[in-house]
């Protein structure tokens, strides 16, 4: 059995376990269950955003506006909480979901009905969303003392010893897993990314499928926006600035093909966890956090290089291809 037959999730899982082992060799406290649990909880927002991005990338699109969506929805929730401290938190979560889905739908409509390339659409909406946060907040911060206790405590409510934030991530993972493996829409995501022309002939509406992927990505980003703002008890314009690239990175490390049509929920979760472990381990092992950016950059490059190796055509190549991969943007 050669290395390319081992499932990517297994390799990634082993890498994460090995990484934890190396860290544990010097800092045993890092692998205490309680610490690992907190690492996983810290990574929950990245996991949820990566799940949405996964669906979008599956359909050969990309969503660069997720972090801005998160920040905008989070700010709206924070302002709403300031105005109406008694607003029920479950409704708040639902509202965040709806606002996020709406922002995602804006992207989706521009891609589907107007036919603008996704990278251009989300580049534009990314800056527009950030600007709107400034207009809403006047550039000022919403701080912890301006938020109600129930607002900031909601993601931390323990259930079976685990914070609600982590449970919501588990629900999101399960939901997206069932969606992509058990429903016609999930199959359509793969089909559209795998071969859009063939997908049309099998009766799949390509544009509509891409639209729904954007709505899913937006809804997850919006929901995460509320949870993020509540957990860190602060909302401001620059929240999660640049986070969209972490999200794409998590997908790429998790083995999602940027050319669409390939990838798995398990890979995405492990890819996000990999970044989460690195992020949380650096301060523990006394490496300056300034190394984090370089390390995650190197991890992305290595992961994508491994991806390309495993996807190489087998057997003798008679005619050299002009391009190994086709870039959908």
């Amino acid at each position, binding site marked *: 059995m050669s290395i390319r037959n081992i499932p990517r999730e297994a390799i990634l899982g082993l890498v994460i376990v090995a990484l934890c082992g190396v860290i544990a060799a010097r800092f045993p406290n890092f692998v205490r269950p309680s610490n690992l649990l907190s690492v996983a909880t810290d990574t929950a927002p990245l996991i949820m955003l990566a799940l949405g991005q996964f669906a979008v990338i599956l359909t*050969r699109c*990309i969503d*660069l506006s997720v972090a801005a969506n998160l920040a905008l929805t989070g700010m709206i929730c924070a302002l709403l909480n300031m105005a109406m401290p008694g607003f029920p938190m479950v409704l708040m979560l639902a509202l965040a979901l709806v606002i996020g889905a709406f922002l995602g739908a804006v992207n989706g409509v*521009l891609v589907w009905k*107007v*036919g*603008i*390339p*996704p*990278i*251009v*659409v989300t*580049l*534009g*909406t*990314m*800056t*527009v969303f*950030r*600007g709107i*946060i*400034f*207009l809403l907040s006047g*550039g000022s911060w919403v701080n912890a003392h301006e938020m109600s206790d129930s607002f900031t405590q909601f993601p931390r409510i323990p259930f079976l010893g685990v914070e609600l934030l982590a449970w919501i991530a588990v629900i999101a993972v399960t939901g997206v897993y069932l969606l992509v493996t058990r429903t016609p829409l999930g199959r359509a995501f793969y089909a559209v990314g795998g071969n*859009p*022309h063939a997908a*049309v002939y099998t009766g799949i509406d*390509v*544009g509509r499928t891409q639209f729904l992927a954007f709505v899913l990505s937006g809804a997850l980003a919006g929901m995460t926006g509320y949870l993020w703002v509540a957990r860190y008890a602060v909302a401001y*314009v620059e929240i999660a600035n*640049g986070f969209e*690239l972490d999200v*794409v*990175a998590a997908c*790429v490390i998790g083995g999602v093909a*940027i050319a669409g049509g390939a990838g798995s929920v398990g890979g995405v979760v492990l890819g996000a966890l990999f970044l989460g472990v690195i992020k949380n381990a650096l301060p523990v092992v006394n490496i*300056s956090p*300034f*190394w*984090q*950016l*370089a*390390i*995650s*950059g*190197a*991890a*992305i*490059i290595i992961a*994508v*290089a491994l991806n*390309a190796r495993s996807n190489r055509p087998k057997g003798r190549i008679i005619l050299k*291809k*002009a*391009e*190994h*991969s086709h*870039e*959908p*943007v």
Partner: protein
Amino acid sequence: MTEASGTRSIPDRLTSPLRRNLLGWESLLLIVGIAIFILNSFASPYFLSAWSLSDATFNFTEKAMIAFAMALLIVAGEIDLSVASIIALASTAMGAAATAGAGTPVLVLIGLGTGLLCGAFNGALVTRLGLPSIVVTIGTMSLFRGISYIVLGDGAYRGYPETFQWFGQGYVFWVISFEFALFAVLAVIFGILLHKTNFGRAVYAVGNNPTAALFSGIRVQRVKMTLFLLTGLMSGVAAICLTARLGSTRPSIALGMELEVVTMVVLGGVSILGGAGSIPGVVIAAFVLGLVTFGLGLLNVPGIVMSIFTGALLVGVIALPRLIAKWRK
């Protein structure tokens, strides 16, 4: 993307030259630019002075220098998201050299050399390993800036030689800055390179159909490698100008500039899917974006709100011709 070929899919030579010029992307942009110019002159009495207009050029000259090379890269069907990080790395290298007592010529060589090296790294990953450039450059974007953070941490480099600062603050003819003069010269060079040389034709061919280009004798990978080198080099040039103008290096220098550069290129009518676009379009887009930021600055609009306008301008200008074409149908 199947539906994204848009208005430029009909070969230009099938329409008469007059019609082509009147309905072309460049004239649409020019009209937008003139409208913004007129609005600006109403907005503030300070607008129409030679000095403030000259000052305004700094809003776009550095970005435009990179945008010229990026335009060629995008026409060839690739993208480089690491340009702003190359600026950070080149600026860090120059800062370290300046601290060690290097003179201006050495600093310039280091700046250009770092840019070329980074471009070569991107190019090698894309052409040798056949990786999608959007992922590779998301990785190197973190990697290059990460190295700057590792070197500088919270610190900064200052104390550049007096003569070096001329690149960002010097004037060639009374009111025309060195940067603007360089911008103009580069516009002509890149215009000739893309529109009047065999290399330029090869760039279009690679972007339109890499397989066909390969079989017609174009060395596809070599063309792409050259373009990555060129983009790296121009990032080095921009790093010299920006560092000289600011007089200091921080690891967060030019943060987020890659997206502004891509916005400029796409607004200039270059198809993000490759194969179409022109340098005059990018030049006009540079002016338009510069005028927008300058005009909004005169009105004391905060930077983050300006992003609403640039984002909306990007999506709006690209949506407009597509919507008109739809209504006609």
